[in-house]
């Protein structure tokens, strides 16, 4: 019989057990990486609802293919690459067949003061969030993904290069462009 699994169990052991079909061990891996995987998907598609759906799909795909994962490489990077590929494919499909979204309505709802705290600070924060969202929307998906993976998800240049499947030099130039662009658009906010 299998040993009981611990939440803080060794990653290599969890992967081996998941390879043997142990869904509980894989559940612990999901728990560990869910936020980052959602973040990677968010960086590419820039929509929360889609990102959650794509992140789920990424984990299912990862479980189906975990037998192919070689322990020499990093499990997290392998996982993020799956998420990025799924999100990039989704974005390509969306570009070809755009669908109507409730994004604008959602933004409006976010801008409304909540019942709990109708504070000036909260309204100001919503304003700022909208400004940043609009600024990010002006970037190409490639530049947006690079800057969000770096600044929000904290991925290294090598990880970004691996996840977005582009050379490290391209990561550097995308980040440089995105930073300059955002700094220019958000000048007043950035100087606060």
């Amino acid at each position, binding site marked *: *019989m299998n040993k009981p699994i611990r939440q803080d169990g060794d990653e290599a052991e969890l992967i081996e057990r998941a390879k*043997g*079909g142990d*869904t509980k061990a*894989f*559940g612990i891996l*999901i*728990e560990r990486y*869910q*936020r980052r995987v*959602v*973040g990677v998907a*968010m960086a590419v598609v820039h929509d*929360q609802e889609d*990102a*959650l759906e794509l*992140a*789920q799909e990424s*984990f*299912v795909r990862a*479980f*189906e293919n975990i*037998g192919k994962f070689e322990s020499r490489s990093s499990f997290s990077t392998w996982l993020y690459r799956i998420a990025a590929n799924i999100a990039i494919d989704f974005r390509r499909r969306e570009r070809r067949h755009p669908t109507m979204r409730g994004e604008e309505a959602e933004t409006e709802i976010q801008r409304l003061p909540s019942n709990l705290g109708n504070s000036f600070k909260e309204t100001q*924060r919503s304003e*700022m*969030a909208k400004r*940043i*969202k609009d600024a*990010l929307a002006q970037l190409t998906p490639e530049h947006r993904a690079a*800057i*969000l993976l*770096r*600044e*929000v998800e904290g991925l*290294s*240049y090598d990880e970004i290069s691996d996840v977005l499947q582009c050379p490290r030099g391209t990561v*550097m*130039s995308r*980040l*440089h462009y995105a*930073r300059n662009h*955002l*700094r220019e658009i*958000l*000048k007043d*906010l*950035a*100087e*606060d």
Partner: protein
Amino acid sequence: MAPNIMAQCDDIAPLLGTFEDGELPPHEMQEVARHLASCASCEETLAGYSNVGRLLRETASAPTLDGFVMAVQARIDQLRPPLRVRMGRWFETQRGHFGNGMAVAFAMAAAAILTVIITTPFARNMVGAGDHAAMVAMRDARSLARDAKSSAKSFEATASAMRGEPSTIISKLESSNPDVAVWSEPSQDTTVIWLSEQQH
């Protein structure tokens, strides 16, 4: 970039973000740091980059992940596991029910069944080949027997002609081997042994 020459802003500007991220090689990190110490403009740009990063992190909306793991696991449970995993689980169950010895016995039985399944077509071919050889041997034997009979008749006719007798009485055919024929003629006190040509 030569370390002793003070770099110009144009050279430094593309490196500022990478400097902020700590991803430059050590000698370039030092060069940018040296430049920043004496260039207010580049320092301002760098501060702008830092603020952009801070704003992005502050306003990044982390989606609620309640029930995320369960939702993924529910989808995974609907998947049909690969054969390797299914067999592993089955053996695990058997081991649980019958102990290790039975599991080994099951494994051996499964291996034996698999061996039989895999080798049956070859075995059939081999058996078929054996049947074929037997049929050929039987046909050859019949053919030889026919030849022997026909040779015997011919011999009998020749002998009769030489003796001027209408026919020779063959009192006894003594061999059951189709390749050998033995005639005894007690009246003449003669025994003839005939061998087929294949025997020579």
